[in-house]
């Protein structure tokens, strides 16, 4: 992988379920070190876009590139190699319910490395400690709270020291304090791992805390209507839907709700 090409590039991506087009002509680039937020109202296709980026859904048209290499055109083994550099936390946590937290974190390490079991267990403990779950190694996902499940999912996502971290609605369903802690954790991990983060969210607090770049998916026109730093977009976005979204329904230019 050439180190100077952008971690993720999306060109002319069109997503559809059967005949129903979700989003069309998506073009964007995620730069190294960004916390890149994918915004949009409910049902605008944010999570669908994430599933396309991860190869869980196939695009109807267009291409996704990781570090300059085409992901869309790659055969399965090549895709697995590209995804090895990625860590993902899912909306519902996505923890394997039949495994303990330590085993959840250990499984990707076992899959991709030939480390001895003792070392893998040690790594799993470290990752869980990083997200504040020291002592919960032998708990099953169903035995811990929703916020802890999200953090455990994060520990699994960083198991292989990924260069790109994906977050699907990280703070959804969390209380404000936990949500804030999770935001801090995302920034901290980004800085310490030197990683790039792609976050799907519609939580304004999170967006303004973590985002350095963003795109806005508009349900009406079914494409990207704004991109850039959300702090700037808040007042200067050309599209009124973006301004209303970032100002909790009030457009600062019109001053009405």
């Amino acid at each position, binding site marked *: 992988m050439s180190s100077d090409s952008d971690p993720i590039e999306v060109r002319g991506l069109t997503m559809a379920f059967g005949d129903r087009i979700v989003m069309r002509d998506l073009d964007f680039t995620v730069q190294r070190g960004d916390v890149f937020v994918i915004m949009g109202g409910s049902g605008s296709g944010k999570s669908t876009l994430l*599933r396309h980026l*991860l*190869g*869980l859904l196939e695009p109807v048209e267009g291409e996704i590139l990781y570090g300059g290499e085409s992901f869309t055109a790659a055969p399965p083994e090549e895709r*697995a190699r590209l*995804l*090895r550099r*990625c860590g*993902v936390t*899912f*909306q*519902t*946590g*996505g*923890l*394997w*319910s*039949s495994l303990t937290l330590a085993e959840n974190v250990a*499984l*990707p390490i076992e*899959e*991709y490395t030939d480390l001895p079991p003792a070392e893998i267990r040690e790594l799993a403990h470290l990752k869980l400690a990083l997200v504040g779950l020291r002592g919960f190694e032998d708990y099953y996902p169903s035995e811990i709270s929703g916020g802890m499940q999200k953090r455990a999912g994060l520990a*699994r996502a960083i198991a292989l020291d990924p260069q790109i971290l994906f977050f699907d609605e990280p703070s959804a369903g969390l209380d404000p304090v936990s949500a804030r802690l999770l935001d801090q954790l995302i920034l901290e991990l980004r800085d310490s791992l030197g990683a790039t983060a792609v976050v799907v969210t519609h939580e304004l607090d999170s967006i303004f805390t973590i985002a350095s770049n963003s795109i806005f998916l508009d349900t009406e026109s079914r494409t990207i209507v704004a991109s850039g730093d959300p702090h700037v977009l808040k007042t200067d976005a050309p599209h009124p839907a973006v301004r209303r979204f970032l100002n909790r329904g009030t457009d600062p230019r019109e001053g009405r709700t």
Partner: protein
Amino acid sequence: MKINTDSANPLPHRRFVTSFRAMPPTVTDLASPAPSISVRADDAGLELLIAGDWVIGAAPAGVAEALAAVQALPGGARVRFRAEAVGRWDSSFLAALLRLGDAAREREVSVLPDGLPEGARRLLALADAVPERPDAQRETEERDFIDRLGEASYDTWHAGRDFIEFVGEVALSLGRWVRGTAQVRSRDLALLIQQAGPEALGVVALVNFLLGLILAFVGAAQLQEFGATLYVANLVGIAMVRDMAAVMTAIVLAGRSGAAYAAAIGTMQTNQEIDALRVNGISVVDSLVLPRVMALVIMTPLLTLYADVIGVLGGSLVASTMFDISPLQFFTQARAAVPLKFLLGGLFKGIVYGALVAMAGCWHGIRCGRSAAAVGRATTSAVVLGIVLIIAAAGIFAYVFNVLGL
């Protein structure tokens, strides 16, 4: 339009007497003046006079006529309301107004809500704030029998191809396991074997004992005619060992293990655990399907062997209590009647049925949608497919084994 007499004379005692004489009063008759709309044309359009208590269940009079009057208006006209005579009102009032408003919009007639009660006006403004999205309405096209038949055949054809592909994937996965590139966790496998085998002993025994009993009953009644009741042992022995034990055991496993696999994997799909496996480069077939197929491939023949014995036991109970054939006699007779190739053939069938049941369960689990209802459907389909596959395979086996002289 007639003015409702009740609202003209709102005296409770008189109304009570009137209704009492006519017929037993209903709740609405007693409680309130009946709702009504009447239409009065004026120079610019229409005036709708609304009166009475508009509560749910009190069939309002004149709504259809009012709607027709609005629809007959020329474009550019306007509709006004006079609602001083409205008493209580709830959603039924708003629903009627919304219908009138929609009809007016279609005719490009303007509606002046001024005459309406304050609360109703505000709620109507709320309902009209977001115009109906034309693409939000789902298309409910009527499809005739031929369309549905075609669609169903198309779906079945595709599902069939998909399942065969899935069987191929499982075979490849088995190949990887043999070569050592796919690992099956021994702990997972042990648990699955425990659930599929030992925990099913009771129900497998019950079903096969009763089956042996029934076969003996039916057979003995016929054989008695020829004075050959002893041959009931041959009948029960051959039927159980050759075919029925394997089929009945596999059907029990389809209901127990096949359903459990579909529900477990379907729930993992709902919970995004399958996504997490894929993203981490872990093969779903290797990690989830292969151990389950192995568990049933190991346990179905063993349970079949056990079912053979239990079935013959059931037959001997009937023979000894009703036809004076001692259990020892029964067993000796049955053993002589059943050659080893029948026994091995039955166990082989058990292996195939077990594999089919496990794959049907796992396949429906993986295809499961992301909702609780989808998990239920996946479980049902898994059991149905499992049983259909067992019976189809049993039919094919009956023919092939016959041709091969086994």
